[in-house]
């Protein structure tokens, strides 16, 4: 692939680029994520994801050939290194995406979407979250819907990922007036209103990183 060509096949290298961009993003926005979490949680979301993504990048320094093997390594590393609820949630996301991706050495648009959707289903199964509960679901679900409809409309992978990132950011912002119904924030009841959900914020970074890696 020439350096100027558009990404149309998501290889292991592209996935590693995504993860690397996400690692950089959680470093850059770690203080912001922790600040959001200090308002409605236990003030560790930024630090947890920084630790987790640093561990992930160390674990994939010599990446396996199959996308599924890579994503499984990512999921297991997050599970063992993150600690907070985002460990099992992001861990489940990547583990389910790994199962969906299997032995494939590269993923086309529909295969990438299928993997992301399997990951989101995993988060739903794990966290029992629904739309409007003020969780990462509220960023991820509209993002994947946008990704899907963009691909259906004939958009390139890069454009579909950009649409997904935009929808994730809008979904993140929409969590601000919501009442938290899941996780530690739900203990706060109405005091959770008026704060952006930290998990939705980090999920928006994950999608923004994907758009960057596919552009």
């Amino acid at each position, binding site marked *: 692939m020439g350096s100027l060509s558009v990404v149309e096949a998501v290889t292991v290298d592209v996935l590693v680029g995504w993860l690397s961009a996400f690692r950089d993003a959680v470093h850059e926005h770690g203080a912001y994520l922790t600040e959001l979490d200090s308002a409605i949680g236990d003030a560790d979301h930024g630090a947890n994801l920084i630790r987790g993504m640093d561990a992930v990048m160390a674990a994939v320094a010599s990446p396996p050939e199959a996308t599924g093997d890579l994503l499984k390594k990512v999921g297991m590393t997050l599970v063992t290194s993150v600690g907070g609820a985002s460990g099992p949630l992001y861990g*489940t996301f990547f583990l389910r995406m790994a199962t969906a991706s299997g032995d494939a050495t590269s993923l086309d648009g529909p295969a990438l979407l299928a993997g992301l959707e399997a990951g989101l289903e995993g988060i739903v199964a794990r966290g029992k979250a629904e739309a409007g509960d003020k969780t990462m679901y509220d960023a991820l679900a509209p993002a994947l819907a946008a990704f899907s409809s963009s691909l259906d409309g004939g958009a390139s992978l890069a454009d579909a990922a950009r649409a997904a990132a935009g929808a994730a950011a809008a979904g993140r912002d929409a969590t601000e007036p919501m*009442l938290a119904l899941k996780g530690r924030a739900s203990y706060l009841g109405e005091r959770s*209103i008026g704060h952006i959900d930290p998990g939705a914020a980090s999920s928006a970074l994950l999608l923004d990183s994907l758009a960057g890696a596919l552009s």
Partner: protein
Amino acid sequence: MIGIVVVSHSPALAEAAVALADEMVHGSGPVVAVAAGAAGGFGTDATEVRRALEKASSPDGVLVLMDLGSAVLSAELALELGPIDVPVRLSAAPLVEGLVAAVVRAAGGADLDTVSREAEAALVPKVTSLAEHATPPAALVPAGESDASVRLTLVNPQGLHARPAAQIATAVGGLSADVAVEAGGRRADASSSLELMTLGAGQGVEITVSAVGADAAQAVAAVREMVEAGFGELEAS
């Protein structure tokens, strides 16, 4: 004898709970394996839970007791990380009371179902003995002294289930008013979605919404609008 796994955010909390339970059986109890802490701090790690499940594994089954939220997520994920060839039950029991009850019952040779039931019922003695100290209900709008009130009929199919209750709590939570919802002779603080759900008010039930405070009229109007719109759950006609 069944095995027991304790999943906690804190190794110190888990070890102490296990020691407390062991005092009841003096070392003759079940294997209790601990998965606690993550990455050197508070947290839980599904792979540690997995190791604990293997350590406590018994053909009679394993009961898993957990502390806060993500301990549950990690325990559920641990079950997903690969097949486990013995029955495993994740218990909704409170950690300390449940563990003591479970260890005692398991030591007596009870099966997984029995130990699990015993653990889940472990709060009953405390609740019963403290009944006279039960927390009084939140201060509510005194009946008949509200600044604004309205009687409404729930038209949406499920009534005040979780999501409508949350919608009401969200709407009144930001207002300068104390708002009560009354149904079937019971009153709930409208800013608490949990209290609203305990009213058990289904479709067709009449509720009274009353409020006191500067925003009382606005609060009552907001609830009225949501109730009459069926909380967005009505089929478009």
